């Protein structure tokens, strides 16, 4: 076995389908539950701060791109940026919350869309944090010398899970035709797109690369029930023997166990757990807040409640808001893809200078997970 290699992000790419969709046209794309406007939508948008997003669904219900296709386009953009050809890519890690198929894994579908020569692949399925799981796999493969370069991509096609047919005729809609908050909030939070990075054992000769310092992923699933999930009804979600697959697809759907759901009471506790994990990194010296020049996080500072920001200040853990970079407002929350969509926008903005440090923070409410990726521009 040889020595471990330094690993560099040499290219980033993003793909967002179609034109940006403003708030007042969202429900044209997603559809309206029993034809009625959502009661919760505006509140959700005020909270998440999103003003525009992209959908791979047209208002007439037709599909413009699959999840895998969006990922493949993002990988091509990242390869372009890295100055690489598809056939020199020997490793691909692909991440998503829900792929185009139930089976086989997402990476097979992305490779299928990319075409080309044989390569090694790995599929990662979780929620937002799957992006960093794929990145860590790609990073370790290059670091260990298994591959000279690798791509990690993440994509979401959330809007298709938000169509009325996922909710109508299920326990998620009450007698007055109102959709449960656990389901409705997410419809106004998540949207479609893909992002990718290319990692290599050498920095680019022309232009900036990002040397990866670490990718740390912390899961607290042993301590919390699912907080954002699909596959079980709200009341029975902790009982894995009662999930949709045991009930069968028809009964599972009727019980409200197919749609994507979020427990907002639990989310408050999960947010505190994320803060705790972050502060542990600060306390142990792994993350030095004053050394960070660019913070990327797909939660907006304004969606964190004021007392959490003030707690971060009290604990010398706050990275000043002027250093937060986000495209959440104009490009939407694309789940797992978000972190690469943001990194791609930042890299292409020209705002990053050699020697600066970037910290990506990827919280995943799924079952209380948070990931950190720190890089230095070289």
């Amino acid at each position, binding site marked *: 076995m040889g020595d471990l290699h330094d690993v560099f992000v040499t290219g980033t790419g993003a793909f967002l389908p179609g034109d940006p969709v403003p708030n007042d046209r969202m429900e044209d794309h997603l559809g309206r539950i029993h034809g009625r406007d959502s009661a919760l939508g505006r509140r959700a948008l005020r909270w998440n701060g999103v003003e525009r997003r992209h959908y791979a669904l047209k208002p007439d219900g037709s599909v413009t791109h699959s999840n895998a296709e969006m990922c493949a386009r993002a990988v091509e953009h990242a390869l372009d940026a890295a100055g690489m050809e598809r056939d020199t890519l020997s490793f691909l890690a692909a991440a998503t919350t829900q792929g185009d198929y139930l089976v086989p894994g997402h990476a097979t579908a992305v490779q299928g869309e990319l075409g080309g020569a044989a390569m090694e692949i790995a599929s990662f399925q979780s929620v937002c944090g799957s992006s960093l799981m794929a990145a860590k796999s790609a990073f370790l493969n290059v670091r260990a010398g298994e591959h000279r370069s690798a791509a990690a991509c993440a994509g979401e096609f959330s809007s298709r899970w938000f169509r009325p047919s996922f909710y109508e005729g299920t326990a998620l809609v009450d007698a007055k035709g109102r959709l449960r908050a656990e389901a409705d909030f997410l419809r106004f939070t998540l949207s479609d797109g893909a992002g990718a990075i290319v990692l290599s054992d050498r920095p680019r000769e022309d232009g900036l690369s990002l040397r990866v310092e670490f990718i740390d992923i912390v899961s607290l699933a042993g301590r919390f029930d699912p907080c954002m999930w699909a596959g079980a009804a709200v009341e029975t979600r902790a009982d894995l023997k009662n999930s949709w697959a045991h009930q069968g697809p028809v009964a599972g759907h009727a019980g409200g166990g197919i749609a994507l759901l979020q427990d907002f009471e639990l989310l408050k506790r999960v947010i505190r757990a994320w*803060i*705790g*994990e972050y502060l*542990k990194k600060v*306390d142990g010296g792994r993350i030095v807040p004053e050394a960070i020049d660019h913070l990327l996080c797909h939660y907006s500072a304004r969606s964190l409640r004021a007392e959490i920001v003030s707690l971060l200040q009290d604990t010398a853990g706050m990275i000043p808001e002027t250093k937060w970079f986000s495209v959440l407002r104009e490009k939407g929350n694309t789940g797992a893809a978000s972190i690469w969509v943001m990194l791609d926008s930042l890299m292409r903005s020209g705002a990053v200078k050699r020697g600066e440090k970037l910290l990506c923070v990827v919280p995943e409410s799924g079952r209380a997970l948070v990931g950190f990726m720190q890089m230095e521009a070289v």
Partner: protein
Amino acid sequence: MNIQTMAMSEAVGDVMRKLTVAFTEFEQRLEQTALLRKLARGRFTLDDYRRFLVELRQQVKDGALWMSRAASNVGEDHLELRSSLMRHAVTEHRDFRMLDADYVSTGGELETIQSAEKNAGSEALSAFMFNEASKPDPFGLLGAMWMIEGLGAVKAREWGRLAQRSLGLPDAAVRFLLYHGDNDLGHIEEFKEMLALVLPGEETARRIVRTAEVVGRLYTLQIEEMAA
């Protein structure tokens, strides 16, 4: 800011960070206890709630007592802290009466809640607190206050609301939990001021954090003992 103020503010920030980590660990341990898991999953019963009130009450009654004892052991170099602890003790020393009233509102007998014994976790927690409070200048107890007041500020209202939702209880039966949720929101500023009275100081900082960790573990034990 002069050098002394900077050192103090840095020390306060460091301790606050470690205490916040300790609190989030504590909250996660609580999340896993059988009783609170039932509460979060909407399977809480009236018997669970009554048991919670009865077993919490015996330790709550001791809260103001160890705080008073701690105040009596604070030396004259820290009179401001002594005043603060005494004020806290006065504010809280009748709180257990609220638990009694809540219990009666659920249809329970006053005699039952008043005559109940501490559970094993409450015994351990109270004994530890009185032991700490009996030491000269027991500044470690600031860590205990952080954890217990944090429960009031962050968890009490959440528990109260969840219990109400599961059981359809009137406000009169969850006053203790709802009152603490209302009452403790300003506690962080006040707490930082108390820390500033005893920091910087490596040994004091270490003791405050350690006491918080022990309290978190013993408080969790108290809830674990309420296994339904």
